[in-house]
């Protein structure tokens, strides 16, 4: 009974193999997600769901009560992303450069130490940083005092003007391991001949980095950027874990994810409104889609020239 099954039979079991994953996933995750997007065209009037077209979006962008919150969240989210791009990428590149340097000892241990925060839960990250930043129990004031910089200290998580930037930096701290590893891999894949050819032309050291290596790792930086973009505009957990759904102080750390959560489920005295929440979800979806399209059609195409 060990004759191999004939071709048509093979096709049939393929369907059986694929079905659980694809069907269950579609039914439980994808369908509800698109259903959520669909909900944004409806509203509840007298306990009945009626189709209202784009009215929810009109409210979201037109009604000052909503639009103010929306633009605040979007602006905060953009700032969150900008901090990541400005801080995470240069640090990631620098760490990768250090890591690939033949002069570094214990490099495997080094890589692990920097990568560890990436695999921790947001809950723990939020707590670990409170241990440091808390104005009363944290050690940041004491440490700054020890090096004579106490005047620099402020309750960073509690002040409107610093809270968002602080959280963005905590998030950078958590995820800097990913750009480091991506760029490290890219640096390793640069053929030695290219660097040697550069050396023959007198390009060494730092200028070799700027003129040869950096252009060659640009595609990796592109991938990091788009992953960061999608991650940041989907972000929710860290703010929720550190500041709660109210994204305090005074909504200064409110990003699209927390705004949507509050709208969906309500908070304190405000009731949840799934339809408006869906409208925000749709807006987020469009924003992320636009970002990804810009990357795919604007950025990645041009980068192809550099790849070998």
């Amino acid at each position: 009974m060990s004759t191999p099954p004939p071709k048509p039979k093979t096709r049939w079991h393929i369907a059986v193999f694929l079905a659980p994953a694809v069907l269950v996933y579609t039914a439980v995750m994808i369908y509800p997600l698109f259903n959520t997007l669909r909900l944004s065209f409806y509203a509840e009037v007298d306990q009945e769901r009626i189709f209202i077209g784009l009215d929810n979006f009109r409210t979201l962008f037109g009604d000052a009560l909503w639009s103010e919150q929306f633009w605040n969240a979007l602006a905060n989210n953009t700032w969150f992303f900008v901090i990541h791009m400005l801080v995470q990428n240069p640090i990631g590149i620098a760490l990768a450069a250090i890591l690939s340097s033949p002069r570094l000892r214990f490099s495997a241990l080094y890589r692990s130490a920097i990568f560890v925060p990436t695999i921790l839960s947001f809950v723990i990250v939020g707590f670990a940083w409170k241990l440091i930043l808390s104005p009363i129990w944290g050690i940041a004031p004491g440490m700054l005092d020890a090096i004579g910089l106490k005047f620099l200290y402020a309750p960073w998580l509690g002040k409107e003007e610093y809270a968002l930037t602080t959280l963005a930096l905590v998030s950078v701290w958590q995820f800097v391991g990913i750009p480091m590893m991506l760029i490290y891999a890219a640096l390793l894949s640069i053929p030695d001949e290219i660097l040697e050819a550069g050396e023959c032309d007198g390009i060494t050291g730092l200028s070799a980095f700027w003129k040869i290596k950096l252009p060659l790792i640009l595609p990796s930086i592109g991938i990091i950027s788009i992953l960061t973009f999608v991650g940041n505009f989907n972000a929710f957990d860290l703010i929720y874990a550190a500041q709660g759904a109210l994204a305090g102080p005074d909504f200064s750390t409110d990003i699209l994810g927390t705004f949507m959560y509050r709208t969906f489920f309500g908070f304190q005295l405000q009731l949840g409104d799934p339809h408006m929440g869906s409208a925000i979800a749709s807006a987020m979806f469009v924003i992320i889609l636009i970002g990804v399209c810009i990357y795919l059609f604007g950025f990645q195409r041009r980068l192809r020239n550099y790849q070998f």
Partner: protein
Amino acid sequence: MARAVTTRRKILTTAVAWTIGLLIFFPIYWTILTSFKSEAQAINDPPLFFFFDWTLENYSVVQDRSDYMRFLWNSVILAGGSTIIGVLVGVPAAWSMAFVPSKRTKDILLWMLSTKMLPAVGVLYPISLLFVQFGLLDTRIGLIMVLMLINLPIIVWMLYTYFKEIPVDILEAARMDGASLRQEILFVLTPMAVPGIASTMLLNFILAWNEAFWTLNLTAANAGPLTAFIASYSSPEGLFFAKLSAASTMAIAPILILGWFSQKQLVRGLTFGAVK
């Protein structure tokens, strides 16, 4: 000149690099350190970096007061259960995508990955309705299913990229030698696929272990894992810094050990295969 690496420069580079590295690692080190202090020492000013009376008291208190082991057990069950079911569902799917590709294969993969473009909050509402309907709130089985499903795209995607690397020629050679489909999978494919499956399971275990969003929203006292436990502890801040540190340390210990040995596979999963 660039090639001449002197010992002094080597030491200097290492010193500078390690200073940066230790700064980055500091918050974790500090959490672990605080867990061995008494509550008074934990908030001592100036902070105590090494010389204090090391104590294990926090660990026993955490267990006594809040039945820590139950949360730990829940974490193990949720992460382990969702990983096993996820791989059981994912392997056949990834197998057929990798070895019997069709025009639709890429579409199916993208279809599954598409949800990663939207915040999980968007599905929370319908899923919590579903949970209420089927009485799954605060049950382990419900959460196992949810954790399995949210990580399923990554599982399938990772397994797919690993299976892709297995040369089809070998499978064909086995078929030529008269191996049945069962034998082909069991004796030829599995041994070659095991490393990929293992690292996929590892990544999924870590992701499920860390998951806080779903566990916080869908569990209470019964099925809550460690992340929910720590989140619930953090409200009466300050009073329990050392104990919360102990709880956190116990929560991250398995992850640190697992993650330490599997960074490469983790990066591969977290970047959707951009790094191999």
